[in-house]
């Protein structure tokens, strides 16, 4: 019993803890890994496509603005050149003509031109129109003036100048006959900057211009004003062709930057947009995806747990079946080895027992002689010898039963009607049972097929079981006898009593030889083990079920045909 308990506990622990965790962990790992893989692939694919789109947009913004700015500058410069071509130097140097021209330009270009002046090659104003009194200014030292002498036309960097307002100069050199002169205009940088600064896209998209020597030409995004110098390491002013773009981190800010050189590589147009802005929708998507995958994970987990529960239930069921089979196997093995052992012992005891019997018999023979009749203890000796004989006889019965228990099968297989056989056996005890108020209840299957088996041995089994049932009831009770055809070419015979029942701890030993709860001398404890042996040899099985106080049921299953191994030899 203890062994059985232990085995059960061990089996339970194996399936319910180790196997359960094994299944949970491997299922969940598989689920989480595949989910994470899918999520990761989708996320990074999407991220790179967003990235591509964002940089492509950045590049197109840069290109577009490069075009706009260059067009604007070119147009201004070209207009100035047209003026120098259309108007004679002699005309333009007259104040009133220049004023007329200025009026047209101012109107045409929405006050982009702040002033207009005609200069000689020494940098002196010949004529000037504008809000400031600059007639006396000399520009010979100005950088743009040096440039225009060389290049015919110049667009200067933005500078504050004495006016303390950002502006830049467009100057055109023209030669008419012997006269070479210069038309100079100041362009309001604020107006120009609006072209660039009002470029807004996304939430943080921003554009600005930096001169090749590192001065802001328009306001920067992080608060630098026009003409401020670029903070060291903030911007690489190396010259390159086309458009450059990359992602970078500066002042705790992650952003994409695209840049290109404009105005004959004089100005650097820079466009920036924060990474957060670009990935804004991606972050939202990521959040949604996280929620989605978390829900998916939970669903998978629940499914896994449910599947596992089902699986474990199945495993436990299989295990229980296996355990039952194991127990039956162990039981029959145990009985077989006990049978062999007891047969061996019985055989060894037989000869000494026979000698004891014969020797005491011989002594009895001697005591019967005439010359022995007179001895004083004659009667006591006779009694004693009779007792020896009786006890030897008792031993003999036990050894004979033991031997029959392991005896080679000498079954005579015949066609047997179990219903009839059961009735025959019941009839032997029914009258006596009636005296103890024990009632026999019959529940026979009327379509029970004939079976091929050894009727005398089965009779012995039935007789034994009915006797046991009567002993269990003692007085007042019922014994139910039933037969039933099974689906699998076998029949079932049950004998139930309403007796005292068998305690659980005895139930597993009930078929063991010598196991008895009867008083010493009242039972050998061999009856049920012999029944077990007989039924097994006939290819059947015998089971017992019992509940203390309610009764006991023996169930015998016998095949319609005995198995080949017990065939009569």
């Amino acid at each position, binding site marked *: 019993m203890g062994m059985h308990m232990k085995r059960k506990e061990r089996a339970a622990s194996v399936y319910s803890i180790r196997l359960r965790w094994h299944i949970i962990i491997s299922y969940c790992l598989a689920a989480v890994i595949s989910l994470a893989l899918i999520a990761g692939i989708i996320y990074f694919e999407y991220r790179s496509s967003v990235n591509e789109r964002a940089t492509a947009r950045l590049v197109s913004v840069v290109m577009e603005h490069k075009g706009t700015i260059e067009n604007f500058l070119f147009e201004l410069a070209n207009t100035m050149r047209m003026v120098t071509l259309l108007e004679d130097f002699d005309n333009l140097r007259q104040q009133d003509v220049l004023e007329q021209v200025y009026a047209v330009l101012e109107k045409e270009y929405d006050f982009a031109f702040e002033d207009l002046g005609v200069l000689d090659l020494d940098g002196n104003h010949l004529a000037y129109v504008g809000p400031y009194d600059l007639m006396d200014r000399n520009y010979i030292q100005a950088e743009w003036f040096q440039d225009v002498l060389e290049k015919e036309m110049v667009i200067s960097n933005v500078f504050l100048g004495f006016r303390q307002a950002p502006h830049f100069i467009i100057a055109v050199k023209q030669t008419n006959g012997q006269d070479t002169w210069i038309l100079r205009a100041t362009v309001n940088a604020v107006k120009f900057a609006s072209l660039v600064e009002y470029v807004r896209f996304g939430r943080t998209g921003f554009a600005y211009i930096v001169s090749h020597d590192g001065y802001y030409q328009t306001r920067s995004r992080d608060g630098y004003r026009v003409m401020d110098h670029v903070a060291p390491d903030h911007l690489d002013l190396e010259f390159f062709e086309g458009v450059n773009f990359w992602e970078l981190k500066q002042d705790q800010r992650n952003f994409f930057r695209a840049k290109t050189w404009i105005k004959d590589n004089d100005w650097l147009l820079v466009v920036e947009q924060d990474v957060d802005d670009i990935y804004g929708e991606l972050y939202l998507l990521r959040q949604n995806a996280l929620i989605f995958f978390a829900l998916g994970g939970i669903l998978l987990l629940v499914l896994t747990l449910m599947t596992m529960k089902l699986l474990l239930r199945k495993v436990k069921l299989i295990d229980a079946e296996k355990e039952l089979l194991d127990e039956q196997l162990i039981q029959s093995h145990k009985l077989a080895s006990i049978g062999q052992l007891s*047969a061996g012992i*019985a*055989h060894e005891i*037989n*000869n000494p*027992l*026979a*000698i004891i*019997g*014969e*020797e005491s*018999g*011989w002594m009895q*023979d001697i005591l019967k002689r005439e010359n022995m009749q007179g001895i004083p203890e004659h009667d006591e000796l006779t009694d004693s010898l009779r007792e020896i004989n009786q006890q*030897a*006889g008792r031993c*003999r019965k036990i*050894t*004979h039963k033991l*031997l*029959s228990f*392991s*005896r*080679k099968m*000498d079954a005579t297989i015949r066609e047997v009607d179990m219903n009839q056989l059961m009735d025959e056996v019941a009839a032997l005890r029914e009258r006596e049972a009636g005296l103890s108020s024990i009632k026999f209840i019959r529940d026979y299957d009327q379509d029970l097929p004939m079976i091929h088996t050894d009727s005398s041995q089965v009779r012995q089994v039935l007789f034994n079981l009915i006797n046991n049932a009567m002993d269990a009831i003692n007085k007042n009770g019922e014994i139910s006898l039933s037969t039933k055809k099974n689906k699998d070419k076998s029949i079932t015979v049950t004998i139930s009593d309403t007796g005292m029942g068998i305690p659980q701890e005895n139930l597993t030993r009930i078929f063991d030889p010598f196991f008895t709860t009867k008083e010493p001398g009242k039972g050998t404890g061999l009856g049920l083990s012999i029944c077990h042996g007989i039924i097994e040899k006939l290819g059947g099985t015998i089971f017992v079920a019992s509940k203390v106080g309610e009764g006991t049921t023996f169930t015998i299953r016998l095949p319609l045909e005995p198995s080949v191994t017990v065939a009569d030899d």
Partner: protein
Amino acid sequence: MSNPKVLLVDDEEALLTSLQRRLQLRGFNVIAANRGESALRAARRQDVDVAVIDVKMPGMSGKELLLALKKEHPHIQIIVQTGHGLFDPRDKQVADKIFSCLAKPCDFSVLKQTIIDAYNKKKAL
């Protein structure tokens, strides 16, 4: 009733002697042998009516002995005493050659009666 001549074969000497004494007391003419081989020789010297044979013996087994005895003396009646489950009296080789098969140890009166029955059968032949 003439005295039946009984050949008693058992490897257990103590059993042999007490059985011999008790049967002789009751008027049987008993020859005792503790081996199959000596039993066979004894049967050749004297005319034996009934042989009571133990199955398990060193040397010649009970089965071999009874087959040999039956071959040499077809009218001899054989009673087999078996102490274990290994001897099958239904064995086709021996079934028709055995008068009776008794479980050992067997009640003396049963043995005595069986010997008398066997002797009567022998005489009737």
